[in-house]
């Protein structure tokens, strides 16, 4: 008991065996970030109000008003849902296809070597480059966006899965083999869990890229979604509205990565990078 607690405490403090104090904080941890955000907002307001950045920038307060307008506008929410739908569908399809495929490739030497060059060649092709082709083949509706998004989210997941499965500690495999675990049990209970941190990274990357591609598609092709909404207010000359929408996309992006990190924290709490006292 005492040993365990000692270890835990030591673990918690091991970050600063140097004696550099990392928590002098008597103030709560959210104060500092909040202060910076306020400082930045005020600075931007002043800079835009006095046209320090040129005349093309709306003031922070004007953007704030537009933000409020957009949030009240049901059509924004409608477009937001469209974006989320395309994003989630594309992401899920990519994950469902890439994870088993990646495992299969990584576990099979022959498949691994055979597909390596193809994967290396296809992976760096920016999905937006095939956008014109996708539009011709799949039209301009949800289906096309989803396919493009899935295509772009596919590679990071596939890659990380292959990498993760490859990187399973051989000693763990030996352990499984000595203790008579079957192939399926070994995969389910040893290979898969130890590859999950890599896969989680893949998911996080894929989610970010997928969102970028969703919005890029909406901007370029004009499929409905937040990107389309941005174009619309832009064409209407409403700069403040455009910034407000960009803020909203940023918020979505933050929310998405925040959710994913929370999810990772839960499922990978055992992993060294998430362990807490």
């Amino acid at each position: 008991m005492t040993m365990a607690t000692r270890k835990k405490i030591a673990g918690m403090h091991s970050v600063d065996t140097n004696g550099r104090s990392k928590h002098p904080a008597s103030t709560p941890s959210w104060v500092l970030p909040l202060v910076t955000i306020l400082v930045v907002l005020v600075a931007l307001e002043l800079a835009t109000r006095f046209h320090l950045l040129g005349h093309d920038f709306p003031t922070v307060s004007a953007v704030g008003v537009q933000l409020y307008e957009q949030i009240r506008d049901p059509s924004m929410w409608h477009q937001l849902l469209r974006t989320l739908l395309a994003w989630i569908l594309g992401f899920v399809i990519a994950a469902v296809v890439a994870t088993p495929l990646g495992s299969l490739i990584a576990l099979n030497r022959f498949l691994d070597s055979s597909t390596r060059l193809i994967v290396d060649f296809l992976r760096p092709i920016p999905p937006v480059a095939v956008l014109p082709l996708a539009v011709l083949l799949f039209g301009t509706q949800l289906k096309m966006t989803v396919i493009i998004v899935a295509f772009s989210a596919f590679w990071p997941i596939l890659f990380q899965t292959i990498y993760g499965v490859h990187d399973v500690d051989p000693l763990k495999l030996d352990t499984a083999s000595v203790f008579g675990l079957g192939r399926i049990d070994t995969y389910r209970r040893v290979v898969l869990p130890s590859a999950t941190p890599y896969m989680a990274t893949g998911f996080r990357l894929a989610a970010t890229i997928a969102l970028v591609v969703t919005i890029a598609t909406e901007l370029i092709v004009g499929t409905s979604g937040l990107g389309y909404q941005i174009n619309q207010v832009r064409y209407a000359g409403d700069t403040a509205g455009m910034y407000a929408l960009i803020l909203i996309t940023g918020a979505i992006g933050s929310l998405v990565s925040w959710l994913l990190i929370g999810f990772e924290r839960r499922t990978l709490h055992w992993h060294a990078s998430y362990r807490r006292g």
Partner: protein
Amino acid sequence: SCSSGSNSGGDVSAAGSPGAPALSTLKVGVMPFVDVAPMYLGVKKGFYKDHGLRLDLIPMQSGTAAISAVMSGSVDFGLATPIAVAQARAKGLPIRFVAPSEQRVPSINGLVVKANSRLHNAKDLDGKTIALSSLKTQPQFNITAFGTMHGADPGSWKLISMATPDMLKALGADRIDAAYMAEPFLTQAKESGYRVIINDPLKSVIGEKAMVSAWFSQDKTIKAKPNLMTEFVAATAEANTYSNKHHDELRGIIPSYTKLPKKVVSKITLPVYAPTLNRETMKKTVSLGVKYGFVDKPVPVDDLVYRGK
């Protein structure tokens, strides 16, 4: 080995809404511009319903996107310019115009320069940077043809494609020398003191009745649903005619599908909407398109325009 994954429109004519005499649903790709206002008005006024049609208006960003969308079968109709459709046809895409939309009008398109610019006519443009909403298609054709006819050398122009809202800012910052734009930006430009040096080039190139844009569809769809085509053409003609006569109502409908403020809408110049497709001007446009290299090869008008069943 033609790819499938395309035609989902096969069942369109069968689709009926519950109640009332079954309406057939047609999907139409629309752009958030002034061009499509009559269609919105027509839907509102019930012209399409009267013809047994229910329109599903699907927004998209450009004529090229519309052509792709029609080809892939995700919409039945799209709006595009003659050059775009002719070039697509020349490249082997089986599409053709079905119903009229906009035709040439004073001042809906123009080439704009800064107030203090030293550019005054087409000849002055040689060696300059000009912004267009898209390249290799109608807008570029318009000013190229106009320029050539007026003694300029379009080969020396530096053309750049740019979203129209950004053009005035780019002009103001001297990043470009001239910009070719349409309503509502043209009105805004004039009000902000920019100068229009070429007004409506299409008029001088093709003539009074030049077609600016029109509704097109895929041959396959046309063949499959001849009755719906007839109804669509008739309803569109009605909507166009009505729109030409009721500008207030037309202006009223625009903010419903764009984000344009009412103030802007009240000032813009509205185009004339044609009741029928003009085969003559189409023919001329295509031949000039071939001449100036915008259309790969001559396309017979009969391949380009739906004649009715």
